[in-house]
């Protein structure tokens, strides 16, 4: 029976370790948020949100960065959603088991694993230099669009896969064509899943810094961009630039900007989870 006791003891110890590690993850999340809020909340006020960046940390604001982020996301949505959803529909509904479709599939799974900074180099070579768009909002959003494309495609495919076969069969039975079936049956019933994927991909895009540094996002932009060919800054870029400065005042400003960025990220993730749950319930 000694052996039995020992085994039980090991079993219980591992359980405790499991709880500890799980709690550790959540504890660190708490420490991170707590420290950032303590450091930055004094800066959170209307002036901070509506002031231009400044060389004096206590006067610096994030207005141009917020506008830059909004502009960049708007364009990214315009490029990435139609292409991503279209590609997802093609792969799930049209592509037959051919060499081409298996290459497409391997390729997309590989693209999802390419580091974001490599997308930056792609954007630098193609959009910034080859097409001559320079360090503009256009270059940045095209680069981010390619970066989030695999996420949107995978989410679209998963959502379409979950649509019951019977619905499609019924539509075909009524004489609907393939596209009519997709437009009137498949897309409406997979809408929740696709929307979840899109929101998650945008929340990823909003936090991206590395590829935008490479395609020329600015650390200091004293004006609001007026066209898609203007230079720009984004929130993560502003945070990076402030973090790397030696003055304590900029670290506090960075913490303030992080609070804003985290709120945006969490809200988007929350909305995505909400839609996912609602959609899954409806499917059942």
């Amino acid at each position: 029976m000694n052996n039995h006791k020992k085994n039980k003891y090991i079993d219980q110890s591992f359980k405790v370790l499991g709880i500890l590690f799980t709690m550790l993850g959540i504890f660190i999340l708490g420490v991170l948020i707590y420290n950032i809020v303590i450091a930055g909340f004094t800066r959170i006020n209307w002036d901070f949100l509506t002031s231009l960046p400044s060389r004096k940390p206590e006067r610096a604001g994030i207005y141009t960065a917020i506008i830059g982020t909004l502009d960049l996301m708007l364009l990214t949505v315009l490029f990435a959603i139609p292409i991503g959803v279209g590609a997802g529909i093609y792969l799930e509904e049209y592509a037959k088991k051919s060499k081409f479709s298996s290459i497409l599939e391997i390729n997309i799974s590989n693209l999802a694993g390419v580091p974001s900074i490599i997308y930056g180099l792609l954007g630098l070579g193609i959009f910034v230099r080859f097409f001559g768009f320079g360090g503009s909002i256009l270059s940045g959003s095209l680069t981010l669009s390619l970066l989030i494309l695999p996420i949107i495609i995978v989410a679209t495919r998963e959502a379409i896969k979950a649509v019951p076969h019977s619905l499609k069969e019924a539509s075909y039975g009524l004489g609907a064509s393939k596209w009519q079936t997709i437009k009137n049956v498949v897309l409406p019933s997979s809408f929740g899943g696709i929307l979840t994927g899109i929101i998650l991909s945008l929340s990823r895009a909003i936090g991206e810094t590395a590829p935008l540094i490479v395609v020329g996002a600015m650390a200091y932009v004293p004006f609001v961009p007026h066209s898609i060919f203007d230079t720009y800054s984004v929130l993560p870029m502003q945070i990076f630039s402030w973090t790397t400065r030696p003055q304590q005042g900029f670290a506090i400003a960075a913490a303030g900007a992080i609070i804003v960025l985290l709120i945006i990220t969490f809200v988007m993730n929350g909305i995505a989870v909400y839609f996912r749950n609602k959609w899954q319930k409806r499917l059942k």
Partner: protein
Amino acid sequence: MKVKEKIIEFILKFCASITILTTVGIIAVLLFESIAFFKSVSIFEFLTDTQWTPLYSEKHFGILALVSGTFLTAAIAIAVALPIGLTIAIYLNMYAPTSFRKTLKPFLEILAAIPTVVYGFFALTIVTPFLQTIYPDLETFNSLSAGIVMGIMIIPFISSLSEDALYAVPKSLKLASFGMGATRFQTAFKVMVPAASSGIIVSIILAISRAIGETMIVAIAAGQQPQFTLNPTVPVQTITSYIVQVSMGDAPQGSIEYKTIFAAGLTLFVFTFILNSISFYIKKKYQEKYE
């Protein structure tokens, strides 16, 4: 009607083809600039020199100095994330009550949703000062702090993907093991983990790939000194943070500094491509096994 259907199919196919163009574009851009780079620097020097100083007057182009920094930070990250992530996966799968599991998982996944620039700030302003109270000789920029924080970021990747792999193991195996009188611990390590090993290995490979491509944490917290070293307490530079450093400056197109970031990027791309391909291959084999 027929024509419209055909046009729509063509448009959708074109959308899907953009992903192929992306890959072609990545490889073309990296190769094009790298070939120009290797016209002025020999591949032999690139692969064997241990100094990387393209931004100085005395130029050396030894990628090993960046590769060592890249793998040092990634190794620290995996050393943190693997034991913690795997333990969490086993705990959630074998021990935790369902309700507990359902509340915990979203919390852990928040760790993966936080932008990496935030983790960089966390590493530099909170973790490094904390580590310095334990080990005062730790420099302000170091791979230890960056690696640990990167590890924290990667925990949900390993725990989530490994838990999925454990979940996919047929229930009958688990029940048979319990029926033989095995404890949960014995069942976990003698039955479940071996049965889910391919999925767990995939999660680890993807985590490594993610760690070597991670940019902002190392760019902020690990420093900007390319060093061929395994010392975690001194500043290092990774491939990614070198690309950031050059991009923040103004390297004119056509200059050797400009070309170096593509040669460095190509090196990084090759590493992650190999890792992703291995994981894809294992995943394909593993799916066949259960279906």
